[in-house]
């Protein structure tokens, strides 16, 4: 049992104690005595980041619909809280009941980005759960992970009992059903894992042996038991309308990163950008119907009291009835003064009228993501945005009263040259020209253009999974080049830390040997690595040295076609042959049309006949 008085005293001494308080509106309260399965949903970052995440909202309420299960939340305690917890021997606890996570049946982590991995280790350690799966015994929870990084969870293989591939709505139910049965019979851990491995999309890392060649490449990945399938295929839900979506969401007291109702319009993306992992792993596109969305919006507004609705999806403007939907939502909620926000909006597909319409709703900055500075490179990455699109959209936007434009680019993309970098500055200038090209009375004062570059990180399951990343030096040089090239009036330039991008690249395409590096880095004090003020590269480099692994092997090496990739035993539905074909087309600068225009034969159609 946790000493609640002690915890209370500690909360009085840390920054933002509300992070650990819980008790928000719509938090689910159950008596733990009434359930047979306790699931700690763990987000390996702070509360305000984790609570912004849609997947967590869905699965939390979904699991709590079950009478036999209580799903509770736990986040990574910030460094000051961690210190106090260790000092006072307070184990990691959930927000709902403040019970120690170690006594739960499951601890489920969602992996949204690579740089949260040390937080996962730290949370297990704070919970008093053995870090290595092989050290866990009957009393310990099963540690399970899902989310986009789980598709290549190899660097975490030593720490995870189970990995859930794909969309969890159906799978989690099957897993909990199985667990309920198993628990009644009092079987051993291994027998549960064996049975779980038979659930489609469930991956049990310890049931696979990995062998390596002398040069360090993976030689083979083979199941070591008949209970495990050769390949693990991701799960998807076929029909979103009949799939669970919460009609209430927790309304945090604290100001979180995305503090609003989230309506998920569709899953997947039909554009086929070659660098984008989400665009590949979430295929195929499945839309929620407009009627369903309106119905959900009504309930969510009523049940949360939120003042804003965000229409969220990978490429929101591709929703087939977006204009209609936006108009209807605006009409419906006008009296309630509820605003709409449309992230990742691609204005290339909109009419001027529509831009004016949404402008009434929300007058924040306009974002545009050409990703690359020249048409040549945009063709290489299959990003279907042209200079004309940009000119038309920003001009329309300026006329409609906008004066702030954000431009997003990636540097270090395959085949990039100085001309492409110059092109980034060129586009910033073009936007400025569009603005001054308008008569003075037609535009708002105070033009502001923000150019942001992220650094390309080759990701598994993309056509660029074989490509080397630029070295940190190259990226720094390119950033230096852009700093000079973008020294223009009204323009501000932001860039990403190359060291973080480097580590991301290492772990994104990592294999199991990196587990030891994670452990060493964590022991060296690494946590909250995605927070600039907490990140220390030395600890990481030291961890690679300690384990005699060269990070450059993972980040900078070009892979050959026949190389066995550490994630080849995972099947996301998109074939390796298709990815290779796309890589070759990229080399030739050839475009692949949007799935809505024609099917490129990515392999999805074979698996999910009828939805694609």
């Amino acid at each position: 049992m946790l000493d609640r008085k002690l915890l209370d005293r500690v909360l009085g001494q840390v920054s933002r104690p509300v992070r650990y308080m819980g008790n928000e509106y719509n938090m689910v309260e159950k008596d733990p005595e009434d359930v047979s399965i306790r699931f700690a949903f763990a987000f390996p970052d702070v509360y305000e980041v984790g609570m912004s995440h849609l997947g967590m909202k869905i699965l939390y309420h979904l699991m709590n619909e079950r009478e036999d299960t209580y799903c509770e939340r736990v986040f990574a305690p910030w460094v000051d809280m961690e210190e106090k917890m260790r000092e006072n021997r307070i184990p990691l606890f959930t927000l709902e009941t403040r019970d120690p996570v170690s006594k739960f049946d499951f601890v489920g982590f969602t992996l949204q980005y690579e740089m949260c991995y040390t937080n996962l280790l730290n949370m297990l350690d704070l919970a008093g759960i053995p870090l290595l799966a092989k050290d866990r015994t009957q009393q310990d929870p099963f540690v399970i992970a899902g989310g986009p990084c789980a598709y290549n969870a190899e660097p975490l293989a030593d720490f995870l009992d189970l990995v859930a591939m794909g969309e969890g709505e159906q799978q989690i139910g099957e897993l909990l059903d199985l667990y309920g049965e198993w628990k009644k019979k009092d079987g051993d851990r291994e027998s549960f894992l064996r049975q779980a491995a038979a659930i489609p999309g469930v991956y049990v890392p310890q049931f696979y042996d990995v062998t390596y060649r002398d040069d360090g490449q993976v030689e083979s990945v083979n199941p070591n038991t008949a209970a495990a399938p050769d390949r693990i295929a991701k799960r998807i839900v076929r029909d979103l309308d009949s799939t669970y979506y919460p009609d209430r969401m927790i309304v945090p007291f604290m100001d979180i990163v995305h503090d609003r109702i989230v309506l998920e319009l569709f899953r997947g993306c039909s554009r086929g950008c070659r660098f984008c992992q989400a665009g590949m792993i979430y295929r195929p596109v499945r839309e929620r119907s407009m009627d369903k969305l309106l119905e959900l919006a009504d309930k969510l507004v009523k049940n949360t009291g939120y003042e804003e609705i965000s229409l969220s999806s990978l490429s929101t403007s591709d929703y087939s009835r977006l204009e209609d939907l936006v108009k209807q939502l605006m009409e419906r909620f006008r009296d309630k003064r509820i605003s709409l926000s449309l992230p990742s909006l691609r204005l290339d597909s909109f009419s001027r009228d529509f831009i004016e319409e949404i402008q009434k709703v929300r007058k924040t900055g306009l974002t545009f993501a050409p990703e690359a500075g020249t048409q040549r490179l945009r063709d290489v990455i299959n990003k279907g945005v042209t200079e004309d699109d940009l000119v038309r959209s920003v001009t329309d936007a300026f006329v409609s009263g906008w004066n702030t434009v954000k431009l997003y680019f990636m540097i270090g993309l395959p085949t990039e040259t100085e001309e492409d970098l110059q092109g980034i500055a060129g586009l910033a200038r073009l936007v400025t020209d569009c603005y001054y090209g308008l008569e003075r009375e037609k535009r708002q004062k105070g033009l502001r253009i923000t150019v942001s570059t992220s650094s390309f990180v080759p990701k598994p399951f993309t056509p660029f999974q074989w490509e080397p990343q630029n070295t940190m030096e190259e990226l720094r040089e390119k950033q230096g080049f852009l700093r000079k090239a973008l020294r223009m009036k009204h323009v501000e330039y932001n860039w990403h830390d190359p060291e973080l991008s480097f580590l991301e690249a290492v772990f994104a395409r990592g294999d199991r040997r990196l587990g030891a590096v994670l452990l060493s880095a964590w022991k060296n004090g690494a946590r909250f690595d995605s927070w600039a003020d907490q990140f220390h590269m030395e600890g990481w480099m030291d961890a690679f040295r300690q384990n005699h692994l060269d990070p450059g092997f993972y980040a900078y090496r070009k892979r050959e076609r026949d190389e066995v990739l550490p994630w080849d035993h995972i099947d996301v539905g998109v074939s390796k042959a298709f990815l290779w074909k796309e890589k070759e087309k990229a080399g030739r600068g050839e475009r692949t049309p949007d799935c809505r225009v024609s099917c490129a034969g990515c392999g999805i159609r074979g698996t999910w006949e009828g939805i694609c």
Partner: protein
Amino acid sequence: MRFVVEYTKEERVKYISHLDLMRSMQRTIRRAELPIAWSRGYHPHPVMAFASALPVGMTSEGEYMDIHLLEGMDIPELEKRLNRALPKGITVKQAVAVDEKVPSLMSLVERADYRIVPEDPEWDWKPAVDVFWSKPEIWVEKKSKKKVSSINLKEAVRDIRACGEHNRELFLSLPAGSSGNLKPDLVVDALLEGKDRALSFCRTGLYLRKDGKWVTPLALGKQEGGIG
């Protein structure tokens, strides 16, 4: 229509900040579907005002806010709707209709009372309180955002008493509101002379002066013959 609403902030939500509370109340009012008056601007929010900010970590038995509705409403109905929509741990105790001309609560409130209870079951406040009264003056540093100033607690404190069983509870009555504010931890630190204690703080009420008497903001209600 203007209403003054009295509510509590209980143990389970005591770590929310004043800003958190304001946001939460706005959303509560939306959930309660009250015919609310809206602020102007791109992001309109319900028009409301609070009597006094409650520090993070403190519970309260009597907080007050002002809300404005476009139409009249039955008081019991208003209370019921708010309580249904509030997060657990915040409870509306009572509401009264108030004349629009009454000045803001913030400008009227002049006094706040607190009850401070230590975790230690054996603790006795009496010796510390006796020392406090025996000294002619007690100067402490008061830090605000802009400056540090010195104040004499003997003058500033309205009342201070050990009470409850075995004098385990401390009762503090301090100046509050825009006319001058004194935080209870400043006084408690002086009483404990720097020693660290596990204490829980509860604000037991906020008061204003009316006809020479201390009353709660509920006394501004029309039926009680409020000001204006």
